[in-house]
């Protein structure tokens, strides 16, 4: 009897490896109308900042073949509002809560890392890879030195396990994974969205008001898989894989390439019950094949 679907990341046990990706799931309340969130391994919150942020002008979303572009720009009610209205509710949902935090300056990240100590979140995901904000965000996510610096700065003040979320819009993502590990990250998650553009041929203008945005959805999955594999071979901390997952077989691919857990993002928009359905299907697969999920992680056999 070797069936097992639980995974552990930085001492936190997830009942299954399925999390929801930041920015696609709000603070969980909307999707809790469709299914109880305890069916998930965990949820990553909408990116939080010190002050409320209005985000970018509309339109903020465009569709492309097998994917979407977004340029929300980190609209959120701010950490204080989150602590008042969402933190306790999320704790009561009996699933692992990963608070996604972002900032414009190093000081912002440090202040957020301190303030999030007062939340019930189980882990913190450092958003240094958002392509949609002018200051900060991805500015910290490009060069390995700054990835290391911001990770260490937050790690120094934050008592919760830190997941550094990596951008694919870099020359070598494995270098950045190493830098995050060097800075003390307990895990890395990848990939955030790919910098992208969509054009309206009638107006000759970009569809997004922000001109460019981040691409996600099934079309990015092969890129994400390669990057997860590259990072798996570069670091020893756990990897949380994301990018275009739409089925339990997609999850298996990420696990085989070295992910310990995965996040479901864009697919929540296509099917509101997607994350719970994938968790159910994965469980069925693992049970029927009597598989211990840990035996899958990084089991890729190269040709």
């Amino acid at each position, binding site marked *: 009897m070797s069936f097992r679907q639980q995974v552990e990341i930085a001492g936190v046990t997830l009942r299954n490896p399925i999390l929801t990706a930041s920015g696609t799931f709000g603070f969980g309340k*909307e999707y809790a109308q469709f299914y109880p969130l305890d069916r998930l391994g965990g949820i990553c919150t909408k990116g939080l900042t010190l002050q409320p942020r209005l985000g970018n002008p509309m339109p903020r979303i465009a569709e492309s073949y097998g994917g979407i572009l977004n340029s929300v720009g980190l609209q959120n009610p701010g950490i204080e509002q989150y602590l008042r209205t969402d933190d306790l509710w999320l704790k009561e949902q009996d699933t692992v809560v990963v608070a996604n935090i972002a900032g414009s300056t190093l000081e912002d990240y440090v202040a957020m890392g301190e303030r999030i100590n007062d939340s019930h979140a189980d882990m913190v995901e450092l958003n240094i890879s958002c392509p949609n904000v002018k200051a900060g965000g991805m500015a910290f996510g490009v060069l390995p030195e700054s990835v290391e610096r911001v990770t260490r700065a937050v790690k120094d003040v934050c008592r919760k396990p830190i997941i550094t979320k990596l951008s694919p819009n870099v020359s070598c993502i494995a270098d950045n994974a190493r830098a995050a590990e060097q800075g003390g990250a307990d895990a890395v998650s990848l990939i955030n969205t790919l910098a992208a553009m969509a054009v309206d041929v009638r107006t000759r203008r970009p569809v997004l008001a922000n001109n460019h945005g981040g691409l996600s959805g099934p079309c990015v999955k092969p890129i994400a898989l390669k990057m997860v594999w590259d990072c798996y071979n570069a670091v020893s901390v756990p990897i949380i894989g994301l990018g275009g997952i739409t089925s339990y077989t997609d999850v298996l691919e990420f696990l085989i390439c070295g992910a310990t857990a995965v996040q479901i993002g864009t697919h929540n*928009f296509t099917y509101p019950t997607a994350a719970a359905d994938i968790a159910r299907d994965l469980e069925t697969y693992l049970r029927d094949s009597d598989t211990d999920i840990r035996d899958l992680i990084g089991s890729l056999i190269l040709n």
Partner: protein
Amino acid sequence: MALKDYAAQVLSNRPVAQDIYEMTLRVPELPQIAGAQFVNILLPTREHVLRRPFCICDCDRDAETVTVCYAVVGAGTRILSEIPSGQTLRAMLPLGNGYAPAAGSRIALVGGGMGSAVLPAVARCNPQCAFDAWIGFSDASKVVLEERLRSLCDSVTVTTDNGSAGRRGFVTDALDEALSNARYDAVFACGPEIMYRSLAKVAARHGVPAYVSLEQRMGCGIGACLVCNCKVKRNGEQGYARVCKDGPVFALEEIVL
């Protein structure tokens, strides 16, 4: 738990005017629907990962059906228009806040072009209110929903920009005239932003509260992804509201046009 993603069967999907279609879906165990709520429909093509939001044009509790009325404006609606009867589509509904005026109210319904598609459901879902409707289109080839509204409203006035059907001129001008002669408790309108600008003046001139339904490109359709905002002013402060969850119906005076 209150929301569901339904497997809805297409009962009919037919053209009713030039490039305009009506699709009726059978939704098993159809939930209670409020006027001006919407349905988020998944296209059967896998490359389209975003659903398409459509206002619910009409519904029938007994037959467990909802009808949407849509114009073919892009690739998505083109695909939708080619779906045969019998096919099953994923449909999330009912979404949005909806519009439910107080019982006994007399309401002026105003539609601009395809915005008219939301009006029948508003009348259908509020049988304890009285309705008159004004619907405006660019020309006679685009006129839809007149008959459906006639069965639900005390009167229906059609306008076209070029006078090829009904009265010539803008629908808001016809409304302006009517408001001079009769009292309404509120105006409910759906149409393009330019119509709302005119409506704001008309409603203010006659001292009638106006409510409008907005549209915006959407992601999740349930308030989680924050892509479909509109600008609103509340308590003297400007901010964003989510069209899908806080709307699509807003008081016209709170919207920043």
